[in-house]
């Protein structure tokens, strides 16, 4: 009677004979890597993959409850949030999983860029990685649409209006995405199939190719200062490195990836438990206008860029700048694929990466803090600071009321409260003279509507009288530089 171990060995042998399991293992998980590549710098790719797998698992669970129809999508989210046991947690994990996935993927790309890992012979790995990046952003965007709340509806509108400006094919793309000329019942089904079938399918395919490429030419060696990549000698050098310092990825080089995967999962679960899922902010209903929609974090910087950009630039940016940026990303390995890899010898690359990330973060911060959309409730809900009420004459009080009822406050703050689309008016009297105030109100300009036809002369007088009082105590309001020909009597010091 053979022992247990012997029997197991034989069973494995039987299968191996037919499936070549050992050979597969040796050429995949067991493949050799340079010892120094088992580094903390090299964990972000596998971390991204962990997120993706988590997204698939939680996505399948969500799909059990979610109903992709405009009338029920929102209700099914509310069901998950408030009725289904731990449904909110599931949503939270899926949401934070996508946040972590995009975040880690970005870090992975930066690391690959800074370590010159895209250079010969890994150009294609970079290109496929860029495709994966775009697909992931696509999944994040379509995922946001799945909520089908106000943010989703509005994000959809923006996405569609961007697509519509693509020359020649814009209209057709929009039609294809929306399933009709307007956002309607068809639209959600289309985005649903994109989100759960098309994009994950493409992602899986892309990941397979990406990993295949990593296996074929090996993981990037840890960059060494002064060591240059040259296609003629690279293969031999890498071979030698493996000879000297090679370890098997599994089980010898995987420990850091496992620890990092655990940290990532812990982070996602922690965020879901503490911060929770995004609360749907009302059903997608174009008649509800009192909302200040905001995209999920991955698109904040894009959102900010478009909000801050003058409108005449938008077309140019969509048609030229964005495509050139994307093409530039893909083209990186073809612009320089030899030479030094170490970041210390590539100051240009470090500066470029730092600049790009700083821009993204600043824009995202602007987007987070953004107030370009008018505050629709400010006119009736945001009080005039009491110190701007006290001591005002009855006419000036009426002027403050004009500022409310004509909805100036939706764009203009007083002492920081109110809309931020136009300048805060708390000190406006120090900047503009009476004539300039009148002109600004009547003629508008610079993103401010002209009120000439919408205000009676009494309203204009009142609102200007009120604004003339808006200056710090002790600081005189702005005046026309030319003194009046005849000094007005009795109003000295006005």
């Amino acid at each position, binding site marked *: 009677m053979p022992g247990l171990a012997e029997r197991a060995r034989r069973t494995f042998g039987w299968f191996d004979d037919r499936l070549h399991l050992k050979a597969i293992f040796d050429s995949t998980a067991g493949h050799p890597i340079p010892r120094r590549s088992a580094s903390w710098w090299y964990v972000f790719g596998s971390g991204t993959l962990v997120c993706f797998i988590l997204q698939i698992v939680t996505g399948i669970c969500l799909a059990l409850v979610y109903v992709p129809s405009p009338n029920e999508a929102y209700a099914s989210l*509310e069901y998950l*949030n*408030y009725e289904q046991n*731990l449904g*909110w*947690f599931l949503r*939270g994990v899926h949401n934070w999983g996508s946040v972590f996935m995009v975040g880690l993927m970005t870090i992975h790309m930066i690391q690959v860029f800074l370590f010159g890992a895209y250079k010969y012979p890994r150009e294609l790995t970079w290109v496929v990685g860029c495709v994966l990046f775009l697909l992931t952003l696509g999944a994040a965007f379509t995922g946001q649409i799945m909520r089908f*709340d106000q943010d989703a509806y509005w994000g959809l509108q923006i996405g569609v209006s961007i697509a519509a400006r693509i020359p020649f094919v814009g209209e057709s793309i929009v039609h294809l995405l929306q399933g009709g000329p307007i956002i309607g019942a068809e639209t959600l089904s289309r985005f649903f199939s994109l989100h759960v079938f098309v994009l994950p399918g493409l992602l899986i395919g892309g990941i397979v190719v990406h990993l295949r490429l990593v296996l074929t030419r090996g993981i990037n060696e840890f960059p060494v200062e002064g060591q240059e990549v040259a296609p003629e000698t690279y293969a031999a050098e890498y071979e030698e490195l493996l000879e000297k310092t090679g370890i098997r990825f599994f089980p010898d080089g995987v420990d850091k990836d496992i620890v990092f995967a655990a940290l990532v999962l812990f982070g996602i679960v922690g*965020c*879901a*438990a*503490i*911060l*929770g*899922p995004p*609360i*749907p*902010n*009302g059903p997608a209903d174009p008649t*509800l206008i*009192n909302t200040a929609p905001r995209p999920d974090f991955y698109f904040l910087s894009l959102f900010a860029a478009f909000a801050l950009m003058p409108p005449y630039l938008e077309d140019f940016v969509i048609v030229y700048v964005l495509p050139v940026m994307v093409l530039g990303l893909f083209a990186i390995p073809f612009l320089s694929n030899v030479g030094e890899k170490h970041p210390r010898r590539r100051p240009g690359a470090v500066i470029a990466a730092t600049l790009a990330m700083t821009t993204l973060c600043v824009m995202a911060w602007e987007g987070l803090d953004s107030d370009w959309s008018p505050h629709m*409730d*400010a*006119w*009736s*809900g*945001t*009080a*005039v600071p*009491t110190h701007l*009420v*006290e*001591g*005002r*004459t*009855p*006419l*000036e*009080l*009426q002027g*403050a*009321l*004009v500022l*409310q*009822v004509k909805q100036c*406050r939706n764009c203009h703050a007083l002492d920081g409260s109110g809309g931020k689309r136009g300048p805060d008016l708390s000190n406006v009297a120090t900047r503009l003279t009476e004539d300039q105030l009148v002109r600004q109100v009547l003629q508008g300009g610079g993103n401010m509507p002209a009120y000439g036809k919408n205000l*009676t*002369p*009494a*309203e204009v*007088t*009142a609102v200007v*009288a009120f604004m003339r009082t808006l200056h710090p105590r002790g600081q005189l309001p702005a005046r026309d530089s030319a003194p009046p020909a005849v000094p007005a009597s*009795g*109003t000295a*010091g*006005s």
Partner: protein
Amino acid sequence: MTPSRLAVGLAALAFVWLGCDSLPGKPTEAERYRRPSEILDFESLYAVNCAGCHGSEGTLGPARPLADSLYLELIGRERMGRVIAEGVPGTAMPTFLDANGGTLTQAQIDAVRDGLFENWWKPPTKAAARKQLPGYAQPAAARAARGGDAFSKYCADCHGADGLGPEAPGERKANGKKGGAVLDPNFLALVSDQMLRTAVIAGRTDLGMPDWRATSDGGPMTEPEINDVVAWMSERRP
């Protein structure tokens, strides 16, 4: 497994299970989105719809204070509901009833009205005070011609003999109680007669304008005097 270990294990499980329900990330009912028309509590309704003009605490807004028991007594619940629903045409006071193009349902308007009285109305302590209260609405039988006298008697002290405010800006500063121009044609063009009447009767105690009982020259004003001065001011409107 010993029974005590089992108990500890079960307790831990129960803890995790119950704990899940009290994790900070769990969406609360309060965070749940409600359609604007489903909101019925006074604080939210007032904060979103009235605070902008009538002040966040119901005083010291550009429009008259509503946190004013005397004023609430004067207008009464029924009229209050009507003003909110219909607004005051020709002035900054908007109509709120959705059927009139506003943003509130009748139920919400009732909630605002009831909330105003619950929060800011106190039953008058002296029965006499109540009896003295002039009528809310301006009667047709006012004699504008006599209003000028009443104005000089009760109002000129603060608002100037010509109703255009204290003579010199410094004078206003010296006495915080002095009022600005109330006969300014632009001001009069922007307000209703009812607003003038309300101001005379209930004052603007938040800004230093007394009610009808305490106007200068000893007050209280008689009801005919109130009628007359309002009619007289109304006639100054261009």
